[in-house]
């Protein structure tokens, strides 16, 4: 009934409404036949695209992080700006560029890789830049070859690099623009959890509004997405705390040793 609002039900109706929706969604979790496939595909997409982005972006990240030339600074600014690349536009341009990838999982992975590449490069380079001065020079002085130095830099900056990887994974799980465009929203083959939420809306259309039958599936899929993101956030927090602990331990160690000693030799010997 447009234009006429019903009188609000009795006390506590709002909380009851929200809890009702969530309970309906949790019940749906049990009955949804596609949920396993959707979740599996989402995780697959996230890991594949993040892995590809790491493979492609590790070397640029290292080079940008190590060099202090003007061009490398500009590349870092560029990568930072690329963090906000519009996903929908990326999807459309990718479909225009390679029509044969349309509607395939490969295309979705490619789109997500393009989107998470700036994350890996920008955050990885920033992590490498924050390494203590002289660490890499020291390794070079000890005669390490360039690949060994790169490996050392990545290992030493592992907290920042892992953060970048986890953020890339999260963006692949959450992203909806590129996946919807490239995947073409074929429910069987190329829907992820996030794009399935859009499908829930499109499937019913807006004609009757977002009514009772549309909201629970949306909430259900949103719950799974939130669960995945929470797992990622937990891993991220553990990784970062681990880094804090390590640094504190190193500081204690350095304070306990009476003579002067290069701070990072211990970790290089491993």
């Amino acid at each position, binding site marked *: 009934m447009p234009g006429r609002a019903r009188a609000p039900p009795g006390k506590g109706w709002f909380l009851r409404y929200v809890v009702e929706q969530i309970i309906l969604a949790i019940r749906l979790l049990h009955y949804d036949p596609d949920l396993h496939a959707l979740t599996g595909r989402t995780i697959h997409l996230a890991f594949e695209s993040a892995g590809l982005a790491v493979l492609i972006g590790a070397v640029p990240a290292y080079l940008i992080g190590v060099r202090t030339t003007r061009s490398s600074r500009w590349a870092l600014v560029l990568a930072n700006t690329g963090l906000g690349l519009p996903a929908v536009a990326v999807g459309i341009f990718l479909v225009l560029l390679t*029509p044969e990838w349309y509607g395939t999982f490969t295309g979705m992975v490619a789109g997500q890789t393009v989107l998470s590449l700036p994350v890996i490069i920008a955050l990885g380079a920033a992590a490498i830049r924050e390494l203590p001065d002289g660490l890499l020079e020291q390794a070079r002085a000890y005669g390490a070859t360039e690949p060994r130095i790169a490996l050392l830099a990545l290992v030493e900056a592992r907290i920042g690099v892992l953060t970048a990887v986890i953020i890339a994974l999260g963006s692949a799980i959450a992203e909806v623009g590129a996946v919807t465009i490239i995947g073409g929203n074929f429910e069987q083959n190329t829907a992820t959890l996030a794009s399935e939420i859009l499908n829930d809306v499109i499937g019913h259309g807006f004609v009757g509004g977002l009514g009772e039958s549309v909201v629970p599936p949306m909430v259900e899929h949103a719950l799974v997405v939130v669960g995945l993101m929470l797992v990622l956030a937990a891993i991220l*927090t553990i990784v970062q705390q681990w880094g804090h602990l390590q640094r504190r331990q190193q500081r204690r160690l350095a304070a306990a040793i009476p003579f002067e000693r290069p701070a990072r030799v211990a970790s290089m010997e491993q």
Partner: protein
Amino acid sequence: MMSVAVVGQTGFGHIVPGQLWGALKSGYQTIEQGNDQVINGQIIDFQYTMITTLRLAFEATGIGVLFGIPLGCLLGLGRFRGRRGLLAVGNGLMRVPPVVVGVFIVVMTGGQEGTLGRSKKLHSFSGPLVHVIGASFSTPLFTFSVSPIVFAQAMLALPIILTLTATAVQRVPVPLLDQAQAFGARRWRRNLLALREGRTAVLAGVIVAFGITISAVGAIYLLGGDQGGCAANFTDGQSCARQGSLSYGALSAWNGNLPMTPVAIAYAELLMGMFLVTAAALTFLQQGRSSWVAGGQT
């Protein structure tokens, strides 16, 4: 002249540069033909859409800055229990999925003519959320159209700005701040100094937030309301944020068949162009003139 929508018609498996160029050109032509075209019963008004997209992004980022920078300062420099925990929560919320924000607001407002039937439209808040916080968003403070869409985008922008401000402020060397305090700076002056010193990183956070609010589509898609109502609103001259977002336009202008519609290409081109222009402007602002010569920082 290139034909309008040929990409993919002549066959899969070939990348033909001419086709790509033709597709891009067809998008450009659609832009050039200008406003008030009716395509698939949808009024296309690129100018309006661009302005609304910018307004949406500015309003959402503005709300994020308004609340995020003071709160970020508080979290970064304050000393109170649970500060670490709050920072961790902010970190976790930083990449909250836009669709989840959309679903959250749909549930909170009872959906469009939702289960409780309270809200006629999602263009203005009138759902359970309003009853809970006890005030309508159309009070004088919020007369500049805080639609649920702006609210959703602000929810995306706020944690990013907050967390990056907190980390930026934490990185400012403590002796500097202590020195300022020794010279008699009050607490808020000290915080202001920390903000000034960490402005590059703070602005980086604002840039990321702006990029996300300008391009994220998940929340807008769920909150935009129906096409018919949108068209009606449009002719009434009222704002219709669903049509007003370029990324929504790009997503909806395409019907899912492979020859990409020129309108979708046009939207994608405008979106990319707008992103590039605003990102360049903000980066210029961030780097400043003096450091412009010296190059970027971190």
